[in-house]
């Protein structure tokens, strides 16, 4: 919402009115940290709660995939050729949806879509979370050092950041993945699924840290001149104290937000890479590969496109909604 500068002045005057939230003196009050206040705001936000619950659900499903397989009685690689017609299309309505196969069967191989989605979720979340964690750690370390120390180190890190940003992600990913695979496996060898996952995470990590580094660097530079940082410096604090005690606690909020928005980005990137055939091997269940395979059957078996499509949409949407809500909760001024 836009606010005239004057309005801002007036509001600031109102808000600065002394102990607006000064707690009552008695009853052994324990201070509420800014983090706790953000949590309270988050809890009051219905969008955040719904999307958060959805995310928790997705994560639980992904974690308990083997358990679900056990209960469901069907594995991700099991084929049900006998339930396909002679053109390889699943028998029955809506792509073979039935009590045995909740979301029907894949045309051609006849694998169960539901359990492949469950495992695909696992793959997607694993890749996205791992990549997001690695990029965050890299970005925080490089950004904080560059921002706090400045000088030649800042120049070098900035230069590397620009270099990485200038590299075309898709082309390099396309070129790098097969080359790497060839390097470790022969022309004919079966590539292990774990290796494919690892390569994807590595590619994301190499390209993904720049935005976090930039963000952290900017925040650190802004904080560096703040008086509480100078107070610590004037008391003789060393680099470790400055970075970990004074600076980083103040930039967790934007880092968290960028993390929560990076995860869905990696999910879609993984899907996109799998879609164009780089990345994961055939037998690894993944959203991207499923959608890629399903496109052939868009006319004949739309249900095959529908279920993975809805799943990835719901996942990414929930992540993005939650990320935005988190941003508002951590920085209430940005939403005004």
């Amino acid at each position: 919402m836009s606010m005239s500068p004057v309005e801002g002045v007036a509001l600031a005057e109102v808000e600065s009115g002394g102990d607006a939230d000064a707690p009552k003196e008695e009853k052994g009050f324990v201070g509420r940290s800014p983090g706790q206040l953000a949590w309270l705001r988050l809890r009051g936000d219905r969008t955040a709660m719904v999307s958060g619950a959805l995310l928790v659900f997705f994560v639980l499903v992904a974690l308990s995939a083997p358990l679900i397989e056990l209960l469901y009685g069907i594995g991700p690689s099991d084929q049900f050729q006998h339930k396909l017609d002679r053109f390889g299309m699943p028998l029955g309505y809506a792509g073979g949806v039935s009590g045995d196969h909740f979301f029907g069967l894949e045309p051609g191989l006849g694998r169960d879509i539901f359990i492949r989605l469950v495992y695909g979720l696992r793959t997607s979340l694993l890749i996205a979370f791992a990549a997001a964690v690695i990029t965050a750690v890299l970005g925080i370390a490089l950004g904080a050092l560059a921002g706090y120390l400045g000088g030649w180190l800042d120049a070098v890190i900035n230069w590397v950041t620009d270099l990485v940003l200038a590299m075309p992600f898709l082309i390099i990913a396309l070129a790098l993945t097969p080359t790497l695979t060839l390097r470790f496996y022969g022309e004919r060898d079966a590539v292990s699924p774990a290796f494919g996952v690892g390569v994807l995470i590595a590619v994301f990590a190499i390209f993904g840290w720049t935005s976090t580094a930039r963000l952290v660097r900017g925040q650190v530079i802004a904080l560096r001149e703040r008086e509480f940082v100078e107070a610590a410096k004037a008391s003789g604090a060393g680099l470790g104290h400055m970075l970990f005690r004074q600076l980083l606690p103040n930039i967790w909020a934007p880092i968290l937000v960028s993390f929560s928005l990076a995860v869905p980005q990696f999910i879609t990137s993984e899907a996109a890479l799998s879609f164009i055939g780089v990345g994961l091997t055939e037998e690894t269940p993944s959203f991207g590969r499923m959608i890629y395979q399903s496109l052939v059957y868009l006319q004949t078996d739309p249900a095959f496109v529908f279920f993975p499509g809805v799943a990835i949409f719901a996942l990414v949407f929930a992540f993005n909604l939650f990320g935005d809500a988190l941003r508002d909760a951590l920085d209430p001024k940005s939403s005004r």
Partner: protein
Amino acid sequence: MDRPESAPSGEPDRPAVPEQRAGDPYLRVSDLRVRFDTADGVVRAVDGVSFAVERGRTLGIVGESGSGKSVTSLAVLGLHDPKRTTITGEISVGGRQLVGQPDEEVRRLRGRDMAMIFQDPLSALHPYYTVGRQIAEAYRVHHPRVSRREARRRAVDMLGRVGIPQPGRRFDQYPHEFSGGMRQRVVIAMALVNDPDLLIADEPTTALDVTVQAQILDLLADLQAEFHSAIIMITHDLGVVSQVADEVLVMYGGRAVEHGSVEQVLRRPQHPYTWGLLSSVPSLHGDADADLVPIRGNPPSLINLPAGCAFHPRCRYADRNGDRSRAQVPELRPAGAPGHLVACHLSADDRTRLYAEDIAHVGVAR
């Protein structure tokens, strides 16, 4: 601006004004209440404030942060967001009612009949336009038929009037090329370009150095003598008030607590809050080794104002009237001398005696 225009070229199109009787104050504010709805609750930023300013006179509004002094002035100018703000009471400028008028009506008055000077001259000026263009623009908004050349001449004239040397040359410079004091002069020139009858200055010198502050205060006084405008000077600095004001309104927690001539309020103050302000301000005169007598506690929050007299938790004399200070909001009542009003539960005798015993010999109150 593309609104229908009927006034002759060059003449400001003043709508038919109810004839103002001589001696009537130019600005009259009665029982003004301003409320904001915020996530944390309703903020009663201004709660029943009344005052009047005649042309050629200066009213000083004194208060701390959160006292409602700035909100009051913004309400007069109609600058509050109507979606978040509820304003009741009466504001009459030159005989015209403002409260409840459509935005467009108030906007026409703003800048032409009344203008504002803000604390921070840098944020009041647009960095990408030359100062001259901004002043000329401000003129043309209310004089749409005026040629660019004429507007430029007017702007250069104003720059000269506010004491900017070589105004013709400085017309084409950008705000960053001016020093802080010169920028505030530009802002004043912009505020005065339409010859407003009411000038509201919100902490106009707080961001400036003392020697520059003295220049700006002198300038405002000179311009007032020349333009015969009514001025509202909003400030936290009693020193500034003592220099420029004819009348003083002391605000606390969104209410007026004392109102009178500058002589009355600063020399024979009646409210314990005013006493506190006077005895806590360090001075260049008197005993430098004596301790200042501060007001205890902190200014209140407007969301959670103390019941009764808002000042009672900080008042040394709150207990003298039993529970009245805590239970009952004191009304602004005559305090002896004509025109002197105070909102305090203490009896007139008590106030006179306490002032003489406790306050009169301390700090700058002497």
